[in-house]
């Protein structure tokens, strides 16, 4: 079935009548497409079990008993050939490469393998398909592209992103390990120029990832960068795009008059006589005054603030790369510049990057080389998606009646509430840049002798960061700052990785054996210091250096580190590419687990390529069939350094005291640093995968389906300790509980072309079901009270508990609105309720409505994620459409907390409230307006929970390639692209893709899908060219 020659052996033999019986040896040589000998190619004699494979010089000899005979020559990555042998002359067979995707080379842990022989779960994507997506971070480009891989992003330029592979395997750290050119990365991917990437693969199951051991429990993203090729070419590539980004589907808030009207309505609902400092005292109608303050410097306005903070922003990317190579040396050099303005004003990200990769061959058997990227990044960011300090949430709450500027030309003050003028805030922080220099890469040496390859590689990820944050003096009435201040922080970190491997590869007859052993040591170190001062005489940027502050000099500095040391081995064997087996083991030592440093993580995988069996013969119709399964374990030790260490330390926020009675001095105290747990152990994930890869119609139609089942045990949990132990250390790391993820992944593609027309349709589907199945020490996990205030207005809205998915929404069950007094009376549990208030359910049926009635009210996890990629080519035109969607997930819309309830009347409200319940508008689902909220409608409940499903046209691209005939030797493609063209969703907020609250906190996985005003995704139109000389 792997034949590419369209004659079956049977039909040939029927035509042959003349047979000579002989006992002879057929000799020959097999060469690759460049004329080099091809060792390990298999030669089989049709209709027999006789077979052999080529030796190191591509030679083979095969006994044959009759002539004419038919031999089949095959080698992975090349089209299988059949030759009819009439005589015994020495054969020279030249193979042709097969561009079938099954032959793509997949980079696996510490090695590579043909896709055809992969028995583990590895998803990969051609970077060329995605590099023109206008975003800074290659992570975001993967959205929807790979089955089993979920992308979360905060949308801001250069901002936080997370990858989730096969759901949420644990509680603390669910981020996969990212490896670039063999070097684990600790500083994220936004320093990498996407154009430098040669391959991206995601190792999803334990069989593929366990060779990375301790940090692979959440999958591994393996990236390699481009180098020159060996074939003597010299290539110059220029890739440029420019585009504009804009926001879409922004919420509509009440305008100045509407707000006044609803304030009056709310006040009347409470039986009060409406009156307001701003909107006057006429009980019948609210009046917009001419001036908002008695000094008459702030005229009344009517501003849509959420629109005002947004802008049409530019994005541009320039990349130039040169590569050159021959047998002896290969180089690649590239320069990149990427600049993305934010669609929120005064935010943005810039990156300058340079990469140099080289390989040199010394003699026949030594290769030395290096891969290095240096990048400079600059980012201006602003808080989003939190209860406090989110510019988006602030813009939603800021009164429409406040004008942009006052009569002095300053950003207008706000006499109604304590939110600062959103434009004023953005303007004040516009020069507060986070600047980083990153150096990422490795140097290596490789020695190849006989069947052995020894390699040593020293990798580095280094990043230095500088931030100067200045807060100027301002006075916006209820929000002001009387003393300016500057805070400067400097930090650096490095991760050194020293990897030594020995690789043995041998093919004998139809057997292929690969053995890898290795050792790897990793050290991470982080150090930072900072200082602040107040009282700067001038606020100009050239004064924003510490020395020029006159008061209150403060400083700080700290450091931390961790280390790993590991040994690993892997054996891969296949027989005729038909029976495939891999076994891997890694033993890891970590500095983080004092008494249990070492953990051992094995895995096995096996595959059976049925299509290579004699009995499997469906011609082109059913062209390939691989069944595979894997089992393996991976470890996790990703918890804060020193969690096992008992110690005392000083923290001037809560261990010092003014014992001598002075007002400006304290004595130093020492407090227990943490609640240590000497006996912490490795968290272990055990994962099984079963899957098959099918190809039909000569592999034009390909289908991969996988089912996985992953159980994580001994989970590293930051456990709540008895509340009598105080609050400074509110938890202790322990091993507790089990979490289960199971799911199904499907990847389906069909590619074909006829004449000038080609097309490719690819669909991927991901499902996962996450469940916490055991938790012994506490009934549930949540966000600690120290962060609850700034994140959730002190409320608990999600919980992680046994039998629930991690981060499930938690609160009262809201069951519509009371329509009349009788309904309130019938319900009987909410004596303070009035018609139009929310009916809450007595979930536990005890006849009382209290906090015990809170229950699980939704899940942020989707039932299914899909990606649909359609590509068409016609002559020189190409068109790509990429859709993706998420189904079955809920969103907790916490923006409603302030924009849907008038008990925080001073903040602007959503225009949806125009349709609030009144006796005349009793069909409404929006609770009646009330300043007093006697029913406590505002409590966390399913009123906030919405269906977060969506389907969107993520990306559309149209390109035209100009014939190289016209532009002697140059290939030029011009393209136009658009992102986020439309989204189909029922979600009432700005955008249904919410992600995490925070992309770096240790609680990040407990807080998923809560909308507190996210940085909006942008709709982007770009034009680009790609030229290759």
């Amino acid at each position, binding site marked *: 079935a792997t034949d590419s020659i369209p004659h079956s052996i049977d039909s040939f033999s029927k035509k042959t009548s003349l047979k000579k019986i002989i006992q002879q040896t057929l000799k020959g040589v097999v060469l690759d497409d460049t004329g080099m000998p091809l060792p390990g190619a298999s030669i089989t004699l049709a209709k027999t079990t006789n077979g052999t494979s080529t030796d190191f010089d591509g030679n083979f000899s095969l006994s044959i008993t009759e002539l004419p005979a038919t031999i089949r020559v095959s080698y992975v990555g090349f089209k299988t050939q059949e030759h009819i042998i009439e005589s015994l002359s020495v054969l020279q067979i030249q193979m042709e490469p097969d561009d079938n995707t099954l032959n793509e080379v997949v980079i696996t842990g510490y090695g590579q393998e043909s896709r055809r022989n992969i028995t583990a779960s590895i998803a990969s994507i051609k970077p060329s398909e995605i590099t023109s997506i206008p975003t800074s971070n290659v992570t975001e480009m993967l959205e929807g592209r790979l089955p089993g891989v979920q992308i979360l992003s905060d949308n801001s330029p250069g901002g936080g992103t997370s990858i989730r592979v096969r759901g949420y395997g644990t509680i603390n750290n669910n981020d996969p390990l990212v490896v670039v050119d063999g070097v684990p990365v600790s500083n994220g991917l936004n320093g990498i120029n996407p154009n430098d990437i040669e391959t991206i693969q995601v190792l999803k199951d334990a069989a593929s990832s366990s060779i990375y051991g301790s940090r692979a429990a959440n999958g591994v993203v393996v990236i390699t960068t481009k180098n020159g090729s060996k074939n003597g070419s010299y290539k110059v590539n220029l890739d440029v795009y420019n585009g504009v980004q804009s926001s879409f589907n922004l919420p509509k808030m009440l305008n100045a008059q509407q707000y006044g009207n609803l304030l009056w309505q709310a006040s009347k609902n*409470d039986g009060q006589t409406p009156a*307001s*400092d701003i909107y006057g005292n006429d009980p019948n109608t609210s009046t917009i005054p001419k001036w908002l303050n008695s000094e008459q410097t702030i005229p009344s306005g009517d501003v849509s603030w959420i629109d005002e903070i947004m802008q049409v922003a530019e994005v541009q990317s320039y990349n130039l790369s040169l590569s050159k190579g021959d047998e002896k040396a290969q180089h690649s050099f590239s320069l990149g510049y990427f600049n993305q303005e934010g669609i929120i004003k005064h935010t943005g990200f810039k990156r300058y990057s340079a990469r140099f990769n080289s390989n040199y061959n010394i003699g026949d058997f030594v290769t030395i080389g290096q891969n290095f990227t240096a990048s400079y990044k600059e980012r201006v960011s602003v808080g989003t998606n939190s209860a406090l300090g989110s510019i988006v949430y602030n813009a939603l709450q800021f009164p429409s009646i406040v004008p942009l500027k006052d009569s002095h030309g300053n950003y207008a003050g706000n006499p109604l509430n*304590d939110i600062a003028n959103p434009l004023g805030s953005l303007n004040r922080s516009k020069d507060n840049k986070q600047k980083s220099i990153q150096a990422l890469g490795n140097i290596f040496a490789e020695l190849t002798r006989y069947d052995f390859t020894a390699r040593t590689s020293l990798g580095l990820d280094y990043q230095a960061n500088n931030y100067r944050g200045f807060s100027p003096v301002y006075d916006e009435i*209820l*929000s002001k*700052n009387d*003393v300016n201040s500057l805070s400067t922080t400097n930090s650096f970190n490095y991760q050194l990785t020293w990897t030594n491997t020995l690789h043995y590869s041998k093919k004998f007859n139809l057997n292929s054996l690969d053995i890898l052993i290795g050792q790897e*040591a990793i*050290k991470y170190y982080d150090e930072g210091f900072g200082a602040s001062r107040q009282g700067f005489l001038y606020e100009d940027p050239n004064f924003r250096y510490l020395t020029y502050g006159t008061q209150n000099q*403060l400083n700080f500095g700290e*450091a931390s*580190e*961790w280390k790993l*040391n590991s040994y690993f081995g892997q054996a891969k064997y296949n027989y005729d590419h038909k029976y495939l087996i891999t076994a891997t083991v890694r033993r890891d030592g970590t*500095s*983080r687990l004092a008494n249990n440093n070492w953990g051992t993580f094995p895995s096995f995988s096996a595959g059976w390529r049925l299509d290579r069996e004699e009995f499997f013969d469906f011609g082109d119709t059913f062209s390939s069939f691989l069944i595979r399964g894997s089992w393996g374990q991976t470890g996790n030790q990703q918890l804060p*350094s020193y969690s*096992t*260490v*008992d*110690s*005392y*330390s000083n923290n001037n*926020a*809560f261990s010092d*005291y*003014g*014992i001598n*009675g*002075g*007002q400006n001095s*304290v004595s130093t*105290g*020492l407090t227990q640093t943490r609640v240590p747990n000497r006996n912490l152990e490795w968290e272990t994930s055990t994962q099984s995968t079963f899957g098959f890869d099918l190809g039909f119609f000569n592999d034009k139609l390909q289908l991969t389906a996988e089912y996985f089942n992953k159980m994580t045990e001994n989970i590293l949990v930051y456990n*709540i*300790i008895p*509340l*009598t*132990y*105080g*609050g*400074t250390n*509110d938890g202790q790391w322990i091993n507790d509980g089990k979490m289960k993820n199971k799911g199904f992944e499907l990847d389906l593609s069909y590619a074909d072309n006829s004449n000038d027309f080609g097309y490719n349709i690819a669909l991927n589907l991901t499902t996962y079901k996450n469940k916490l199945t055991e938790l012994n020490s*506490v009934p549930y996990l949540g966000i600690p*009270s*120290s962060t*609850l*205030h700034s994140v959730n207005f*002190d409320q608990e809205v999600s919980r992680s508990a046994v039998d629930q998915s991690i981060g499930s929404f938690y609160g009262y069950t809201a069951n519509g609105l009371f329509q009349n007094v009788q309904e309130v009376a019938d319900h009987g549990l909410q004596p*303070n309720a009035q018609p139009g208030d929310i009916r809450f359910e007595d979930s536990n049926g005890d006849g009382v409505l*209290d*906090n015990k009635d809170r229950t699980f009210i939704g899940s942020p996890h989707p039932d299914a994620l899909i990606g649909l990629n359609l590509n068409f080519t016609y002559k020189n035109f190409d068109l790509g459409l990429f859709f993706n969607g998420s189904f079955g997930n809920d969103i907790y819309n916490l923006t409603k907390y*302030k924009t849907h309830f008038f008990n925080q009347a*001073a903040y602007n409200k959503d225009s949806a409230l125009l349709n609030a319940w009144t006796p005349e508008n009793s069909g409404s689902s929006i609770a009646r307006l009330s*300043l007093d*909220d*006697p029913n*406590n409608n*505002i409590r966390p409940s399913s009123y906030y929970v919405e269906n977060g499903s969506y389907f969107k046209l993520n990306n559309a691209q149209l390109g035209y390639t100009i014939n190289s005939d016209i532009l002697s030797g140059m290939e030029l493609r011009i393209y136009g692209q658009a992102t986020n063209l439309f989204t189909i969703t029922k979600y009432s907020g700005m955008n249904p893709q919410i992600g995490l609250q925070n992309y770096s906190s240790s609680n990040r996985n407990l807080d998923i899908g809560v909308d507190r005003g996210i940085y909006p995704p942008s709709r982007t139109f770009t034009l680009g060219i790609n030229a290759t000389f």
Partner: protein
Amino acid sequence: LQNMSCTNDYLEETTYGEVAPSEMTKPENVERAIISAYSVLNGQFDGASNAYNSPDSNWSFGDVVSDDAYKGGGGTGDQNNIHQMEIYNTNSTIIDVERKWMALYEGVKRSNEALRLLKTSEDFDADLKVKRLAELHFLRGHYYFELKKIYNHIPYIDESAETVGDYAKSNTALTSEELWAKIEQNFQIAYDGLPDTQAEIGRPTKIAAKAYLTKCYLFQEKWQNVYDATSEVMQSSYGLLDDFQDVFLPENENSKEIIFSVQHTVNDGQPSNYNGSIGDRLTAPGGPFYAQYGFHRPSQNLVNAFKTDVTGLPIVNNNTNLTSTDMVDPRLDITVGRPGIPYKDLGILYEENWARDLATYGAFGPKKRIVSVNSSAYVNVWPYVNALNYYIIRYAEVILWRAEAAVELDKLEEARHLVNQIRMRAANTAAVQNLNGTADAANYKIATYENSWIDKVQARERVHLETRLELAMEGHRFFNLVRWGKAGQVLNDYLEVEKTRRTHLTNANFKTGTNEYWPIPQRYIDGAPSGMVTQSPGY
């Protein structure tokens, strides 16, 4: 690369800036552990910015839930948790219930830990050891006293607890009396070991321990003990300052009137001034000089209570709204920001528009414990805190406690004289002047009780009222009402009228037998072995 070798030494962790437990019994480190037991007195026990959920001043736990104050802020939805407390819809998941408990038990734990270190330290000076042991018992006594008065049935854990598991204890293992005995025992040990004076003024004295012991007796209505103990305090060098307003000036925070206080400091190297009055940071009164948080707002009922009759005596059941022609106790305008009255030494009038969410919470603002922006003890950057100490016990209270005991022991005339000491000081206080300094800012009138007290019930009411006026907005009112056994009656009477003035109280209803105490935090119940912890009645 040498240190990247493959031995197990390579995996040893290097900690930075952390002191090993073996170092902690050195005397200097024991002292530092003791300092950290003091450190959480102000309610700031971690890096979070919400110490207002665990305030040392009890503005929310003692005033907002009483008839003295409203929550304030930007509507009932702003710190809705405290709003729920204000309308007695408190439940065990409210963050203040949890954070206050955490702060106080952090103090217990640090005291226990320091006690254990101190006891095991061999090099520690023996005389000093006695004093420090006494101090730690004082601190632990304080933390437990607060826990007892807020939560009632609480787990009692002493320094014999070593592990985290040892801290999971039942809250009903000890009866209320047994708990009080434990708390008294802490103060008795403190009393026995403490010196008369301390070189470092933040440390408690022998008399401070006696005063706190008195407060324990008071809460148990051990009147003779109160009476006897106050004698000793009143014979000490502590006493009343001459001027009521001076008591609340930062320069007098360690004066003779202050028996024990939480030392607040600012500009001490802590970037966010978390060693200052951080629990009160939301009580900034707004206006042109202060931040606009606007919490802790005096009630109309409290303002009315300051009305006096023509003779200058308080009026019982004094709850018709104060008018500009009414005569008032001069302490009113030191305690409450009122429209038209100069605010502190700022040279301007407090105006209605200072008040945040005027429509909901009315025009009054806090004043007594607000520090002038002209003071070096005030910091005019976020989080807008100051260095004025919070007074846990001041001398005026001791006088009033003795007056209470005197009433109960039928020494009514002595009670009158004691109350008169308080009123005399108020009368001698420089009254708030108008902006020109030409006249009193309002019709101030205050006098002492000249007629003999003959009716015990009436005498008790007068002491209670004087206690309310003298200590208003200092975080004591609610606990006194509970202690007096009349919280339900007083508060429901208050609400009946006050809800006609302030609609945010519409649904407020004090449930006698439940709302006297806060519930045990749900997280403590959930985190303890099943059945170990008993929730308070009604929650």
